């Protein structure tokens, strides 16, 4: 039993490696199949393998007997001639075996290992790479099973937990809040003050949710013009900010200014001019861009960065509880998969095979003898004996072959399970 075959997962991800390394190791689209074939050739003992490569991870899942194989040799093969030495990679690689490998795959497919937990793209990527392995012919019975199970787990996690239902970035929380104030953003205008990264990201979120129009103001007018062009929006001269304020339903402040850009009085005047229609101000500046007293005005809602973080914190707590439930689902599915995997052992297979044959034999005997009631005891006994003899003769060869198998040998064992349909009622 020393050469027991294993499930084996080698990889690196955003948890273990910096982005520049991940970028250099990432597989170009369409090459996954070729690389998987190369791995089968070059890494001794591997019988099946599949790759997964996204911007956050590069991983290989394999089945076989990898005794004595160095994980960095796998990474080296994947990196191939891209100038990455084994030593560069070694420190960033992780290796999971058996249950841990299965659990890792399930967690990845369910987006529990993602940078943004709950993001929905990852499942599609896992499917895509599994299909590449199927096409390349590097995935076999074991990988088919484990990948299909991972899709099933991901679906359960999505349907049974609230993972993925909540936003966690500051700008997406801001948009979510806007949706509690405004019924629709289509007829609304947002004024973005500042031209930094945060301003741009937040503007993008609002545009993606269908904001009617955008205005950009910046101390350096050229930057405002630049951003405005990118968003097909209007640049606004910084000095005349207050004149445009009444037009804005959403005001986003994201500058490095040390004084307040907007005072309570300025907003009050603007509010009066816009007929007291609700105004949502988002202050992303540190120090703050808007006077906090603005929040006291009626129909005005001012959220600064701490307020937004506070909302996120609440979401995050909820998310952690959901993540806990998701982990429980993953764990129970790992155990279920593992029971199947261990059943690949010969003895249980022989027992199952014999049990199945006996059940069939008994059922058929009952049916036949039930319609032959005129037969005497002797005739009945000899029919039973004949049925048993046929069964034993038929099973003799497969069972003695299975008994000769020294370890969970994929070949004969899996063939037997498949040919006799021993796994059909599972799942």
């Amino acid at each position, binding site marked *: 039993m020393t050469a027991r075959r294993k499930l084996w997962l080698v990889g690196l991800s955003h948890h273990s490696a910096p982005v520049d390394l991940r970028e250099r190791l990432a597989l170009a689209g369409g090459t996954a199949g070729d690389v998987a074939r190369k791995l089968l050739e070059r890494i001794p003992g591997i019988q099946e393998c599949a790759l997964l490569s996204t911007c956050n991870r590069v991983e290989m899942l394999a089945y076989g007997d990898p005794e004595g194989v160095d994980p960095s040799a796998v990474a080296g093969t994947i990196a191939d001639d891209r100038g990455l030495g084994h030593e560069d990679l070694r420190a960033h690689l992780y290796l999971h075996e058996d249950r841990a490998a299965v659990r890792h795959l399930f967690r990845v497919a369910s987006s529990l290992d993602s940078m943004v937990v709950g993001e929905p793209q990852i499942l599609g990527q896992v499917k895509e790479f599994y299909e590449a392995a199927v096409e390349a012919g590097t995935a076999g019975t074991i990988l088919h099973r484990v990948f299909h199970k991972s899709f099933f787990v991901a679906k359960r996690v999505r349907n049974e937990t609230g993972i993925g239902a909540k936003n966690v970035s500051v700008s997406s929380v801001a948009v979510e809040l806007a949706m509690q104030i405004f019924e629709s953003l289509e007829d609304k205008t947002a004024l973005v003050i500042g031209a930094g990264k945060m301003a741009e990201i937040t503007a993008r979120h609002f545009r993606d949710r269908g904001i009617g129009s955008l205005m950009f103001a910046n101390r350096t007018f050229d930057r405002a013009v630049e951003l405005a062009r990118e968003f097909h929006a209007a640049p606004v001269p910084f000095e005349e900010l207050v004149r445009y304020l009444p037009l804005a339903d959403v005001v986003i402040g994201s500058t490095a200014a040390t004084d307040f850009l907007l005072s309570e009085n300025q907003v009050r005047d603007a509010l009066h001019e816009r007929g007291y*229609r609700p105004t949502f101000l988002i202050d992303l500046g540190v120090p703050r861009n808007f006077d906090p007293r603005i929040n006291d005005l009626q129909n005005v809602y001012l959220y600064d960065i701490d307020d937004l973080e506070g909302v996120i914190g609440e979401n995050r707590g909820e998310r952690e509880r959901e993540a806990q439930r998701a982990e429980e689902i993953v764990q129970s599915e790992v155990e279920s998969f593992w029971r199947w995997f261990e059943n690949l052992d010969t003895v249980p297979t022989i027992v199952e095979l014999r049990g199945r044959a006996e059940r069939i034999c008994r059922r058929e005997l009952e049916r036949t003898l039930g319609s032959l009631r005129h037969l005497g005891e002797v005739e009945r006994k000899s029919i039973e004996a004949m049925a048993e003899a046929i069964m034993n003769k038929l099973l003799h060869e497969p069972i003695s072959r299975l008994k000769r198998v020294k370890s969970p040998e994929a070949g004969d064992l899996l063939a037997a399970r498949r040919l006799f349909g021993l796994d059909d009622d599972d799942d």
Partner: protein
Amino acid sequence: MELLLPRIALLLYLAAAAGFIGYLITAEERWRLRAPLLLAAAAAVHGFAIAGRSFQLGHIAVASFDEALSFLAFSLAILYLLLDRRHVLAVLGAVIAPLASLLMAVAVLISSGATELPPVLRSAWLPVHVTLAFLGNAVFALTFATSLIYVLEDNRLKAKRPARRLLQPSLERLDALNHRLLSWGFLLLTLGIVTGAIWAHFAWGRFWSWEAREMWSLITWILYAVLLHGRSIGWRGRRAATLTIVSFAVLFVSFVGVNVFSSGRHGGTFGS
């Protein structure tokens, strides 16, 4: 037997109220979808009860105070169900269903049996006037519900404790709904007063007799007129919501007060 249907209706109203409040607290979809069904069941049973009693009396059953309360609860439920056929405003149900339950509970408690209507009041104007007046009140109760939810949500947003899930209609939607309902309520109230005056003219030869109900109707009419005018000049959002709540409070107190204390023909037994 006569009280059986109203009691069943009351139980269903209470169940609906529990459902709507359950939705408000848990934000669970199944409550949002089931609570309106309970309310619809309550209204159906209630409708049978009112129809049965009206048939028995030979005129629409709104003469006594308990009948008036019961009819108001019924109007409220029907109106809400008509307004929210797609169950998007279920949070309003958390105000409407308890209110209907309360009205119905009092109606069942003080139920006094059939009241004879003086012959002078038997006229086709009775159902017209009463239906308009009560629909008007029910619409104002809905404006109260939208405004109450508005103020609660506004408080939460201001305090930086927004709803954890998007369960409420947006503030903008509540405000727009409030405006529309106010216009409808005002129209119904006006028509109710006009038809009442015409009916009074036929019954007593006078359009207006300055009795308590008429006075209070006039006061609420003026309040709502001011509110609607205010809305047209930019009172919106929180201020409009607060004033709507105050106006409804006046309406409610006068409705109960007139029925309990007044001896006029709108009072307890219509006797004068």
